[in-house]
């Protein structure tokens, strides 16, 4: 599904070259729930940007669904993001004066999907993300933090992406709401089969995943299967 081999990313500030990623390799299979953990400056954000096709590596290869995306142009990367990747940001990044359902529809607008089809798919995504239906037509600046993040998750799901990238999704939420959001990811992974990559600096948050990749100074220091705090039940229904 995702194959990253020997990715390097260098930044130049004046004469000083900093290596944000220094030879990172790993594979993620369809249906995995993986956390990438590291302190700030470890290179985890850079790695997320590359996996999210927001940035290109200096060297190394990145295959997404069998396609080499490490050498694509800006507009090609836009198309990959539109069709293959769903983002959930720490700061939600919703359009404040648009309704929840309009926010969720936005990726479909850029994919030229017709309005009726958009509404249907946005509705499905909002149901999957667990936003109550009476909130769908509220403007996003009228929603609580937890509800906003559910809208953001629905927006990430609406184009049925190959992978959902969540960058510190609980960072702006209180711990109780954060827990609910993490359970939502678990549900999406267990019950709907979504591939999820969670980027965080907190061990506690990372432990919701099935596998934790730890980064330090641009290198992988550990890559371990863990027993999740909320493992998928053998038979579990939507809560």
């Amino acid at each position, binding site marked *: 599904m995702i194959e990253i081999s020997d990715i390097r990313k260098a930044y130049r500030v004046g004469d000083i070259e900093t290596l944000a990623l220094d030879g990172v390799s790993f594979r993620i299979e369809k249906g995995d729930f993986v956390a990438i953990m590291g302190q700030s400056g470890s290179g985890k954000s850079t790695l997320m*940007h590359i996996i*999210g096709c*927001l*940035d290109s590596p200096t060297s190394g290869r990145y295959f997404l669904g069998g396609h080499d995306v490490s050498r694509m142009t*800006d*507009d090609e990367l*836009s*198309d990959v*993001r*539109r*069709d293959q990747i769903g*983002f959930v*940001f720490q700061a939600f*990044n919703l*359009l404040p*004066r*648009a309704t929840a359902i309009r926010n969720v529809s*936005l*990726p479909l*607008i*850029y*994919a*030229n999907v*017709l*309005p009726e089809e958009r509404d249907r798919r946005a509705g499905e995504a909002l149901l999957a993300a667990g936003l109550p239906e009476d909130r769908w037509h509220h403007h996003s600046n009228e929603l609580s933090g937890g509800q906003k993040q559910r809208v953001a998750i629905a*927006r990430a799901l609406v*184009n049925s992406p190959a992978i959902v990238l969540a960058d510190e999704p609980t960072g702006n939420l209180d711990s109780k709401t954060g827990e609910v959001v993490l359970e939502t990811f678990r549900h999406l992974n267990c019950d709907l089969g979504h591939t999820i990559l969670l980027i965080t600096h907190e061990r506690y948050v990372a432990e919701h995943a099935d596998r934790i990749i730890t980064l330090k100074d641009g290198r992988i220091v550990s890559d371990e299967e863990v027993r999740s705090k909320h493992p998928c039940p053998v038979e579990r229904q939507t809560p």
Partner: protein
Amino acid sequence: MRIADLFQETYDAVTVNKVRSGLTMLGIVIGIGSVIALLAMGQGAKNSIESSIQSIGSNLLMVRPGAMRAGGGVSSGRGSAQTLTMDDVEAIRGQATAVRAVAPEISGRYQVTAAGTNTNVSVYGVTEEYQSVKSLTVESGSFVSAQNEKGRSKVAVLGSATRDDLFGEGNDPVGSKIKINRIEFKVIGVMAAKGGSGFGSADEAIYVPLATAQQYLSSSRYLSMINVEAASAEAMDLAESELTDILLAAHDITDPTLADFMVMSQADIVETASSVTDTFVTLLAAIAAISLLVGGIGIMNMMLTTVTERTREIGLRKAIGARREDIVRQFLMESLLLTFVGGAIGIVVGWLIAQAAIRFASIQASVSLSAVVMAVGVSVGIGVIFGYYPAQRAAKLRPIEALRYE
């Protein structure tokens, strides 16, 4: 991105900050509005000048005395010379082929009194042809006749405005006596109002027989002007050259540049007046164009501010799959919407100003279709030109930097 979605996104973006969008649009409204209003007034001024010149008469040529140069000596000035006489009139009558009628005139301003009232008015010594050449119509009584001319009768025909001044509006003064320059004349007719104002109004005038005027008023055998009606509109050029040739021969002048008269057609006068009004209109439009330019810069300013303010939003849009062209289109569309709506409102405002000018300032104004088309074109052009740079800036933002922007 579908067109309907593009409009929806644009509409949402523009209405988020209504006050700012409105103020930005105001720049375009004022610019387009002033262009439309000023062009309308300029066009109106041109129309009214042209129509007042046209009211003088049709197919009319005017021969005026020119500067007399005695062997390259001192010029006494154009129009002041006394070179035209009745001999010239007879020569034209006898020789010109493309001419329907010849009407000599002699004019001067005199103090005119009637029972208790008086006025200072232009008195024209004319022959009976004058009426048809100048397309005048009689309201009551009759115009100067050939008998009046032959008998040097002291009779006068009043222009309608002069009748109003001397006898009051609506009164019929035919048969009354007036004194022109203290000489008593009998009123034999009143002319119908002709309209047209300013120089040489036919309504503010008194007409007397030419011979009478020569004998009692000007005491001179020279004419002020010879009005010539060409046989047709097509014959104007031929008539003009015939007149020149006949008069050069009659005055024994071989070099046309030394001619002691000048022949002017109505078209010449219209052309001269039009070139003046054209300059005037261009000047007004240029001033209005400056306000349009300022409006355009206002659009660019707002769009650049918007791009900066919405950096995160642009980053997000790119992150979820917007291509560069999607972003460019969105921002261009926003500036186009502002300028298009601003332009449309500006046209209405300009039209209202023109109507107000007609109503309250009695200035002639007419909004032409070409001005409206131009205004729409210019405002759309401003939208594209001043929206392009901000749109490009937005599209070039790198999503990771844009998303991090605080």
